[in-house]
C-alpha cells in the first residue's frame, strides 16, 4: 500500500482510540478514522481509475462517517450514559499495549504474507494491527458501547486488508458488508438501550449472570 499521509493518520487515530477516556472521544476517533479510510480509497480510485472504488468510498463515507456516528451519539444521549468510557487499564498501559500489538503485527504478518516489491510495511500488518486493536478495545473497556466501536474498528481493519490485498472485494460483497455493518450497529444499539433500561447501566463487568 502506498504509505501516504492518509495511512499515517489512520494509524494515529488507532493509537488515539486506544488511549482515550470518554465515549464521545471514542466516537470521534472512529469518525476520523473512517473519514481517512474513505479518503484513502478515493485516492486509490483516482490512481487506478476504477469506477467501483469511487462508489465504495462514497458509501463508506456515508455510512461510517455520517450515519453510524450519528446513531451512536443519539444512543449515548438516549441512555444518558456517563461519559466515562470505563477503562479497565490506564491509558498509559493501553498505549504500551497498542505499541506491542503494532510490533507484533509487523513481525508476524510478515511471515504470513511476505512483502512484495518496494513496500516497507505490508498491507496485512497494518490491517492486522487495526483488527487486533479493535479486539483490544472490546476486551479492556467496560461500557457496552466500546464493544460496538471495537467491532466496527475490526471491520475497518478487515476492509483495509480486503481493499489492499485483493484490489478491492467484488462490489456486490462490499455493499453487502456495508449493509451488514449498518444493520448490526442498529441492532447492537437497540440491545444497549434495552440493557440500560433493564439494568440501568451498561457496565459489562457487572453482567456476569450468564453462566452454566
Amino acid at each position, binding site marked *: 500500500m502506498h504509505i501516504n499521509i492518509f495511512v499515517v493518520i489512520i494509524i494515529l487515530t488507532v493509537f488515539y482510540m486506544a488511549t482515550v477516556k470518554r465515549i464521545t472521544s471514542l466516537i470521534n476517533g472512529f469518525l476520523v478514522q473512517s473519514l481517512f479510510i474513505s479518503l484513502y480509497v478515493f485516492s486509490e480510485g483516482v490512481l487506478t481509475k476504477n469506477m467501483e472504488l469511487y462508489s465504495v468510498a462514497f458509501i463508506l463515507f456515508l455510512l461510517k462517517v455520517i450515519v453510524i456516528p450519528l446513531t451512536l451519539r443519539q444512543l449515548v444521549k438516549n441512555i444518558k450514559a456517563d461519559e466515562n468510557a470505563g477503562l479497565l487499564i490506564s491509558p498509559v498501559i493501553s498505549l504500551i499495549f497498542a505499541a506491542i500489538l503494532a510490533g507484533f503485527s509487523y513481525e508476524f504478518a510478515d511471515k504470513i504474507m511476505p512483502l512484495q516489491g518496494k513496500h516497507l510495511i505490508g498491507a496485512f500488518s497494518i490491517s492486522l494491527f487495526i483488527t487486533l486493536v479493535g*479486539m483490544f478495545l472490546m476486551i479492556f473497556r467496560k461500557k457496552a458501547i466500546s464493544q460496538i466501536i471495537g467491532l466496527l474498528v475490526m471491520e475497518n481493519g478487515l476492509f483495509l486488508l480486503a481493499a489492499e490485498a485483493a484490489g478491492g472485494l467484488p462490489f456486490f460483497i462490499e455493499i453487502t458488508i456495508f449493509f451488514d455493518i449498518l444493520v448490526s450497529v442498529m441492532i447492537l444499539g437497540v440491545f444497549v438501550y434495552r440493557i440500560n433500561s433493564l439494568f440501568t447501566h451498561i457496565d459489562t463487568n457487572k453482567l456476569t*449472570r450468564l453462566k452454566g
Partner: protein
Amino acid sequence: MSALCFASFFPCDPLSLFFVFVILIISFPSLVFSIGYLKNEYSSRKIALSWILSLGFIFSMLGVVTTNNGFFFLIMWELMSLISYFLVVFDSKKSKSIQAGTIYIIMTHIGTTFITAAILMLFNYSKSFDFIAMKNAVELIPSGTKNLIFLFLLIGFGTKAGIVPLHIWLPYAHPQAPSHISSIMSGVMIKTAIYGLLRFVFIILGIHNLWWGVLVVILAAISCLVGVIYALIEHDMKKLLAYHSVENIGIILLGIGASMIFLKMDIPSLAILSLIAGLYHLINHAIFKGLLFLCAGSIYKATESLDIEKLGGLIKKMPYTAACFLIGSMAISALPPLNGFVSEWLTLQALFLGALNSSGFFRIFLGIAAASLALTGGLAAACFVKAFGITFLSLSRSKKAEEAVEVPFSMKFSMVFLSLLAVLFGLLAVPIVKYLSHLSQYITNIHLNTSFALNNFTLITQSKNPIYLSTPLILILFLLIIATAYFIIRRALPFQKVLINKTWDCGYYNLTPRCEPRFPNRGEYTATGFSKPFRLAFSFFLLPQTKTEKIKDSFYHTTSFKHEISTTPFFNKYIYSPILYLIMKTAKVTRKLQSGSINVYIAYIFATILLLIIFMEKF
C-alpha cells in the same frame, strides 16, 4: 464426497435385501398393531404424531441398511437414533420415560462417535465414502490401525446392539416406548447394528486377526448369561423381554464370532454354517421378540399393568394373546419344532464341528461356548415358564387382571401373523437355510458347492459324518403320537368321567379366599417365589440385598412386617456410576473457566488469535 443421488440408496446388495426383508416383516404387523393399541390411549393429534414418527423411524432404518455410502450411513444412523429417542419419550408425562430417553440418547451417541471415528479412519485411506472404494483401500491400512478400526466398530455397533457392558440403555428404553415401537426397536433396530458389523467388518474390512473372532465370542457368551440372569429376576414384563434381547444378541454374535474364527482358520464350510446360524437366529429373534412385545402390549392394553405379580388367569380372558405368547415363549426357549430351536441347533452344530476341526485351546474354548449356550437356553426356558405361567395361568392376582378382556382385531391379527411366521420359519428351515447359505457366501466371499439340504425337509451339515435335522418330521411324529394316544385314551378305552373340582393342593383348600379381599390368592405361587432359587444360585453376581422392617405394637405383637428384596444392578453400580462421578467432577473443575463476563470471553478469543498467528508460520 460422492454426489447426492438416489442410486446410493438402492438395495442392490443381497445383504441389504435381507435386512430390508427383516425390517419390513416386523414393521408391518407392528404398525397394524398400533391401530388398535393407540386408539383410546392418546389424543388423535398425538396418534398422528406417533404415526409420523413410526414411519420416519422405519424409513430411516431402511435407509441405514440400503445405502452404500459411508456418509449417508452415518446420517441415516443418527436419524434413526433421534427418531427412536422421540418415540421412547413419547409418553412424556412419565418421568421414567424422560430418564430412559436421556440414558438412551447418551449411550447411542457414544456408540455413534465410535462408528464415526471408524468410518473416518477408513475414509482417511480410501479418500471416498463409498463402500466399494473403502473395501479396495483396505490393503493400504497398517495392521495396528485395522485393529483399532475393528475395536471402534465393535464398541460403536455394540452399544446399539446391546452387548454387555454397553447394554444398560436397553432395559430402560425398550420398556418405556409404546409396545409396537418396543417391538420394532427390539426386533429390528438392534439388528441394524449387526448389519453394520457384517457390512463393515466382514465385507469391507475383512477378518485379519484371530483374536477378533475370539473377542466377539467371549463378549457374546457373557452377554447371553448376563442378559438371561437379569431377566430371571425381573417382574416387569417389558424389562424382562428387553433383557432377553441382550441375551439373544449374544446368541447371534456367537454364530457371527464363530464365523470370524473359522474364516481366519480357513475352514470355509464351517464359516458359512456359523454365519447361517447367526443370521437365522437374527431373523428368528426379530420374529419372536416382536411377537412377545406385541403380546406385552395387549396385556398392557387389557389390564393397564405390566407387573406380572399383579396378573394371572389371563388365559381364560384373553385366549388369543395367551396362545400367541405361548408360541413366542416356546420359540425363544428353543423348543422344537419352532424357529428358535433350528437356529440354536445350527449354532451348536457349528460350535461342535469347529471344536472337532480344531485342537487344543480352541476345542476347549468352543466347548465352553457351547456349554454357555446350553445354560442360557435352559435359563431362558425357566424365565419364560415364569413369565407365561404367572401372567396367564392360575388365578388372577388383582382386580384389573380379573376384568381383562381380549384385545381388538388389529392387535390380534398382528400377533397371530407373527406366531404363524414363528411356526413357519421352524418348519421351512430348509429353503431358509439355502437362502441364507447364498447370503453367507456373498458376505464371506467364499464359494461352496454344497447346499445344506438333503431334501426339502431335512437339513444336513456338510461334514465328514453328516448330521441331519428335520423339523417337519418332528412335528409329524408329535402329532401322530398325540393323535394315537388321544384315540387310545379317550376313545378306545371305556369311557370314564372327568370331574371339575377345587385344586387339591395337598388338602389346603382354605388358601383360596372366599370373601373380599379376594386378591391375591394366598395359595398361588408368585413370581418372586418362582425366581428365588435363581436369585440364590446366582447371588455372587446379582448381589441381592434384603431389608426387613418390623412394626411392633408391643414386645410380643407385631402389626406389620415388611420384607424387601432387591438386587444391585452390577453394571450401573460398578462401571457406570464411577465413570459418571469422574465426569461430573471434571466438569465442575472446568466450569471455573466460565466467568460470565464478556470481556473475559473476548480475551479468550484474542489470546487464541494471537497464539494462532504466532504458530501459523509452522503450518
